[in-house]
């Protein structure tokens, strides 16, 4: 096992991820993905008011804030047969879009870019040439030679101070970095701009939900009220602010993010043949236009793709018994029926069963259990989830907006559609999605304004708000798409309280260990074949892992529908 390297912590992600990769002849031949932190949110939810669950589950993740709250509200609404007013759907869609745009931009610049961009190389750039390049790419205002000279000088002073801060010990100068100094300078300049811009887009969350991260949600609608005759409600001033933010967001995405993505991708086209991994893709879809119960109305459609066959989209049902199941063969849990079976979330069970080495440890026992993540499967298949899965499903289902933009991107990079099944494709799909979603956000805003013009102001339904009106038992599923992929919450309500609550989240699909049949999940599959020039500087592994946008706090959880004792920890 001497050639199995360890990357822990995997940085520039959310949460605690560990990768162990076997490297032979400069290439990954096998890989193991482990989540190394657990909190137990589902156990904590048991017995609580279902209307409170959104707040607990929102705290599953502060990077994909809002999406767990949305899934949670929907699960309760699904269980109780609540339909939210049209304006509530629009506000939720606006918050959803704002989350996507913020999260995808931050992912590209602050979590992913340093895998492709050499910060130190930018010191050699010619600011005049950088300015010329920038102006050839987009009409973005901050593109003068003086601007780039100032950024360069600032970073030069920073580097010369000897205190490299977040850039310390980066893999600068590694031969995998291919960008000319001018592109590096452009990217670093926009790294700083994006850092400043991202705090603007989330103001949409503050306006409708009071704060970001972790804005407020509400079962039955949204907590804000509209009143065009009142300063104490969402009025025309607040709406104007939302409109301004959306306009700036579209500009930033179109003038900065997507041009940068394409410019950088042009130098890394070899990565269109690396990191493809699984050939199955799953999307629950979201952005309803006629209600959550009508998936056909979703702008991001629902469906599954098997074997990269874009001519056949399979239906997905979150409630069907044999569709979504979780395995624990290599996870630190145990099932009553043995480690080989898969269980649907409604019938799931979990008991901690830590069999790993005691800290401090060098390597995990990958032959046995090696992660706090369970392993979800769809009809037995390992599935990739995320922007690529969503864009593929939308493309295959004929979404005009998605097809058009995917076409533009492929043409610009001069690559075939099969190039999407790769590390580069995953990163490009995220950019395509951001631009499409930013424009949809404008559409939702316009529709909201039209409703208000027609005096339709309702944002909340009181139907079944009062627990006294609830049936003795009820169960529901809330499905959505986190920026990182398919997310669903399953709730069972009994006697006005949560009897069982379970989450299967995007990074559980992508980052999980292999299943009982030995099938790898997305990260492990995608790493195979990834070149590694220098195992001490595994920047190539980071490229592929970051292309998924890992979010581990989400991925690790536990649930306990039968009320079993779950604290027990067994050591091998």
């Amino acid at each position, binding site marked *: 096992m001497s050639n199995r390297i360890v990357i822990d912590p995997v940085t520039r992600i959310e949460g605690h991820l560990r990768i162990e990769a076997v490297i032979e002849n400069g290439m990954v031949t096998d890989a193991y993905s482990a989540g190394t932190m657990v909190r137990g949110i589902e156990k904590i939810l048991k017995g609580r008011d279902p209307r409170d669950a959104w707040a607990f589950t929102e705290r599953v993740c502060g990077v994909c804030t809002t999406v767990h709250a949305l899934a949670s509200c929907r699960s309760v609404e699904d269980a109780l047969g609540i339909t939210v007013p049209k304006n509530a759907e629009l506000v939720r869609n606006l918050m959803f879009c704002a989350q996507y745009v913020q999260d995808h931009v931050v992912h590209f610049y602050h979590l992913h870019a340093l895998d492709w961009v050499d910060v130190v190389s930018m010191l050699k750039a010619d600011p005049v040439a950088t300015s010329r390049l920038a102006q050839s790419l987009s009409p973005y205002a901050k593109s003068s030679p003086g601007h780039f000279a100032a950024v360069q000088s600032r970073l030069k002073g920073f580097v010369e101070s000897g205190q490299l801060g977040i850039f310390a010990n980066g893999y600068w100068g590694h031969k995998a970095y291919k960008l000319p100094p001018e592109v590096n300078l452009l990217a670093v300049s926009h790294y*700083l701009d994006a850092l400043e811009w991202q705090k603007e887009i989330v103001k949409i969350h503050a306006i409708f939900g009071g704060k970001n991260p972790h804005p407020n949600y509400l079962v039955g609608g949204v907590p804000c009220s*509209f009143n065009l005759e*009142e300063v104490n409600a969402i009025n025309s001033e607040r709406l104007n602010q939302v409109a301004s933010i959306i306009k700036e967001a579209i500009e930033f995405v179109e003038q900065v993010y997507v041009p940068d993505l394409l410019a950088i991708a042009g130098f890394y086209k070899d990565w269109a043949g690396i990191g493809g991994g699984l050939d199955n893709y799953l999307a629950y879809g979201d952005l309803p236009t006629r209600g959550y119960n009508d998936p056909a109305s979703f702008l991001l459609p629902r469906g599954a793709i098997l074997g990269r066959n874009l001519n056949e989209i399979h239906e997905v049902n979150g409630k069907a018994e044999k569709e979504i199941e979780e395995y624990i063969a290599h996870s630190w849990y145990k099932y009553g029926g043995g480690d080989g079976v898969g269980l649907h979330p409604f019938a799931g069970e979990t008991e901690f069963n830590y069999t790993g080495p005691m800290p401090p440890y060098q390597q995990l026992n990958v032959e046995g259990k090696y992660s706090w993540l369970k392993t979800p499967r769809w009809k037995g298949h390992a599935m990739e989830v995320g922007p690529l899965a969503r864009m593929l499903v939308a493309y295959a289902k004929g979404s005009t907006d998605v097809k058009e933009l995917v076409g533009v991107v492929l043409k610009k990079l001069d690559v075939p559609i099969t190039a999407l099944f790769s590390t580069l494709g995953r990163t490009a799909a995220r950019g395509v999605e951001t631009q499409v979603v930013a424009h949809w956000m404008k559409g939702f805003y316009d529709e909201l304004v039209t409703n208000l013009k027609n005096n339709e102001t309702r944002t909340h339904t009181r139907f079944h708000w009062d627990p006294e009106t609830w049936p003795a038992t009820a169960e529901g599923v809330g499905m959505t798409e986190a920026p990182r992929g398919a997310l669903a919450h399953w709730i069972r309500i009994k006697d006005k309280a949560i009897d069982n609550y379970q989450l299967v989240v995007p990074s559980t699909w992508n980052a999980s260990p292999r299943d009982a049949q030995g099938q790898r999940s997305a990260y492990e599959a995608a790493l195979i074949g990834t070149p590694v020039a220098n195992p001490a500087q595994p920047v190539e592994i980071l490229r592929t892992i970051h292309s998924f946008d890992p979010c581990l706090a989400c991925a690790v959880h536990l649930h306990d529908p039968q009320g079993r004792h779950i604290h027990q920890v067994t050591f091998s």
Partner: protein
Amino acid sequence: MPTQPGSIWKTMQEKGYSRREFLQFCSLAAAAAGVSTEATAQVVKAFERKERPPVVWLHFQECTCCSESFIRGSHPIVADVLLDALSLDYTETLQAAAGEAAEKCLHDTIKKYPGKYILLVEGSVPTGADGVYCCIGGRSALEILKETARDAAAVIAWGNCASFGCVQAAKPNPTGATPISKLIGKPVINVPGCPPIADVMAAVVTHLLVFGRAPELDAQGRPREFYGRRVHDTCYRRPYYDAGLFVEAFDDDHARKGYCLYKMGCRGPVTFNACAVTKWNEHTSYPIQSGHGCLGCSENAFWDNGPFYQHLPKFPGFGIESTADTIGAALAVGVGVGIAAHAVSTNIRKRKLIHENVEESVTESPEQQ
């Protein structure tokens, strides 16, 4: 004025800023930290210092909402914090290096700057099962925390997780999630909230750097500067509370007029935070302004303080004169008792009126069980 290489003043000169602009920047930074204009000279001196203060940011049982909040800062913006104000030598969220190279950043700082670096902690530490519930680089969170805290000049606990344990410490706390103040033998500045407000986070760090000492803390280790007032006492909807005008149901006529959310479960009366004054996301809003009650997310054990939509036990009004310590100590005994004890110091003049109004509203409330 001599120019120290690597100082903020030097950096600003290189960026083309004039001395006058630099001094303005210092005044703004001072204002952000809530200090008087006379103290600005200290700010100027601090920012002329040669080395940027080394800072390490540890992540344990958390959701990264604190890091996300931190980068929402508007004064100063986070790029200026990262490039000019300090040297963030370790943070799993943003740093370029991974694995061993990342761990080296942490070890280098501990070794090179003993007694000089600032430790920021996001997340609680699970003490159950000998630490296997949170490991980084094969080491337990507890071991990493102890090693890093030992030589830290100051320790800041970001958010409710590091300060009080937050959601994973809610009953039954399956992993033994523990606040860091209980695990290290030195004072901790608690900056609770889920997450804390971005500009409050920046201001607490700035306060340390500029004044060279911790801000004054209350009995729970929270800076009085931001946690000395109850949300209720600084809320713009407070007049409706005093007048007995309450939202009775979400999106009812009273909600559309922005009346008090007390009866919808608002925890403003028992929550000490700067939300209603400093507000969120560059003063854009705060939860009550958007129409939802305060969840009390900066309070210890707020997750176990009753269902969110059930209003607090009846109380005969709150006086604005009470302090965080008074109610904080009382709350430790229990919310109901806390409120009773607190009522002693209430504003006598208003009490009868408020009492009648609340009584009347509570009786009318249809959705309470």
